[in-house]
């Protein structure tokens, strides 16, 4: 499981244990192996799982926009009050799915969350931003994306792993949710960054100025 998503699952389970949420549903989009990931979430305390079957070429082209369409459709179908996801996946590093999901649903979003608390019918989210920490209050239903310091995920216990076997994982196709998967992106090329060229040493400031003038930089 993507480490940030693990943090998201942990937060969801903690909210349920504090009786602030009724049910935790773990969702994964992809081929058969996704069921393993969902089982891990169930072993951590999620109540049930939904596996959105996407395989082959469709899976290769699956990007944040497609996933967020699926998440938005499921959030409406399940009448969710909160969608909590990892801030980004460690393979793509896109950091887009949570934000796009919120936009598609027209829900408020609390991204890069390092703390989440329920206040009345909304959430107070502390966000990690470049300048430090920002606290915002958002109404529910909302989308939250989990950052590294939100919590430390629990280990699944042996009894919980066994109980997870009995929990249900429903299988669903994107078409059933009315989601079309064609990607509007086409990867043209993937290249390594150019090899760094070695520089030139100069003896004095005058030399440096002369060289910069000669190369047209000055």
């Amino acid at each position, binding site marked *: 499981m993507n*480490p940030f998503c693990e943090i998201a699952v942990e937060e969801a389970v903690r909210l349920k244990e504090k009786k602030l949420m009724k049910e935790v549903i773990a969702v994964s989009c992809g081929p058969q192996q996704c069921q*393993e990931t969902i089982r891990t979430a169930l072993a951590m305390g999620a109540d049930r799982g939904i596996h959105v079957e996407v395989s082959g070429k469709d899976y290769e082209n699956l990007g944040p926009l497609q996933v967020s369409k699926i998440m938005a459709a499921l959030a409406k179908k399940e009448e969710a009050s909160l969608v909590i996801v990892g801030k980004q996946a460690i393979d793509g590093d896109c950091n887009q799915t949570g934000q796009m999901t919120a936009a598609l649903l027209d829900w408020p979003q609390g991204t890069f969350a390092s703390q989440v608390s329920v206040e009345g019918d909304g959430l107070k989210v502390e966000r990690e931003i470049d300048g430090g920490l920002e606290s915002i209050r958002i109404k529910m239903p909302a989308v939250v994306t989990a950052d590294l310091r939100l919590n430390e995920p629990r280990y699944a216990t042996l009894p919980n792993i*066994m109980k997870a076997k009995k929990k249900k994982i429903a299988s669903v196709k994107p078409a059933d949710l009315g989601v079309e998967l064609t990607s509007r992106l086409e990867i043209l090329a993937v290249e390594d960054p150019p090899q760094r060229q070695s520089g030139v040493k100069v003896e004095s400031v005058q030399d440096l100025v002369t060289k910069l003038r000669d190369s047209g930089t000055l």
Partner: protein
Amino acid sequence: MAFAGRLLTRSRLGSYVCRTRGLTANRIHRRHVVSCIDPSLGLTEEQKEFQKVAFDFAANEMAPHMAVWDEKEIFPVDTMRKAAQLGFGGIYVQPEMGGSGLSRLDTSIIFEALSTGCVSTTAYISIHNMCAWMIDTFGSEEQRHRYCPQLCSMEKFASYCLTEPGSGSDAASLLTTAKRDGDHYVLNGSKAFISGAGDTDVYVVMCRTGGKGAKGISCLVVEKGTPGLGFGKKERKVGWNSQPTRAVIFEDCVVPVANRLGEEGQGFTIAMKGLNGGRINIASCSLGAAHASVLLARDHLKVRKQFGEALSNSQFLQFKLAEMATRLVASRLMVRQAALALQEDRLDAVTLCSMAKLFATDECFAICNQSLQMHGGYGYLKDYAVQQFVRDIRVHQILEGTNEVMRMIVSRNLLQE
């Protein structure tokens, strides 16, 4: 740590064990396991889940400390209790007694994974598990209720007391006596090399209630604090330093008859049945050490350069690494097969357990030793983990039945009429 206070109680609502701070970030950079020696190959989904928890726990909670536990001879009670909260305190004890009710194969997989974090601590946990199982299997309802829940949570720790100064391999010749006097026994004698002794709470003791030989031996549970129960000095060992080893001394130690597991004369059978599983567990610990050592060797060969190229380009070392991997997988197959045989109660189970213990402990020691050699001079430094794996698993060829005794068991089976 915020949850330290809750570790001792088994609260039903929402008690969980978090990873130690700051280590989740490391997982983001975790490498994939090398494919042909991947220990998850051939396992069921559920077994892979168990193994994953054990590997995670080993990497986060044990591996960072294994060197200091060894150097400072620390018995890591808090870490073991954390492990118990995940269900590792009584892996094959029945759930109604607080155990996890898993199979012998599940247990082997778990100990193999935990061992990659610290062999010595995992080996102690396996001994503790063995004692909890013995009480769960041979104890009365009352005894099971009295001991098993607290052992499974590791609120209390256990020790297995069979060996004496005068009887190691010849275990049935033990001399510690237990003289019946009404509603109690009076114990006199001493046990040697007892893992955990002095720091543990519950002692499963094999002692002589009847005549000579195996049939005169019974099994008594003795609790710490019982008058007449004393301990020798803490032994200084080459490895297994995260668990204390001491002699256990009985001087007119009074133990209630209600503490006897099973019938008089059944003690040796109980001890041996415990050891069948114990041997698989110890062999599994060797597997974990060998697995970790192969990965360490592999990484070192890729990084270390001599004669202008990485060591991994040397055909000799490539072949050596291949042999190590092959012998590791062969050992693993034997141990897992023995675990299956034991849980299915097959006729060859006892012999297979002995064969697996013999084979795996010998092979895995050779693997760890070869890995140390591949590290060159660095392998001999305590800054590098490989020497601790070598030192820790060396004793696996000796305890829970020496590998010589394993040969006795196998040859006896072959030569029987």
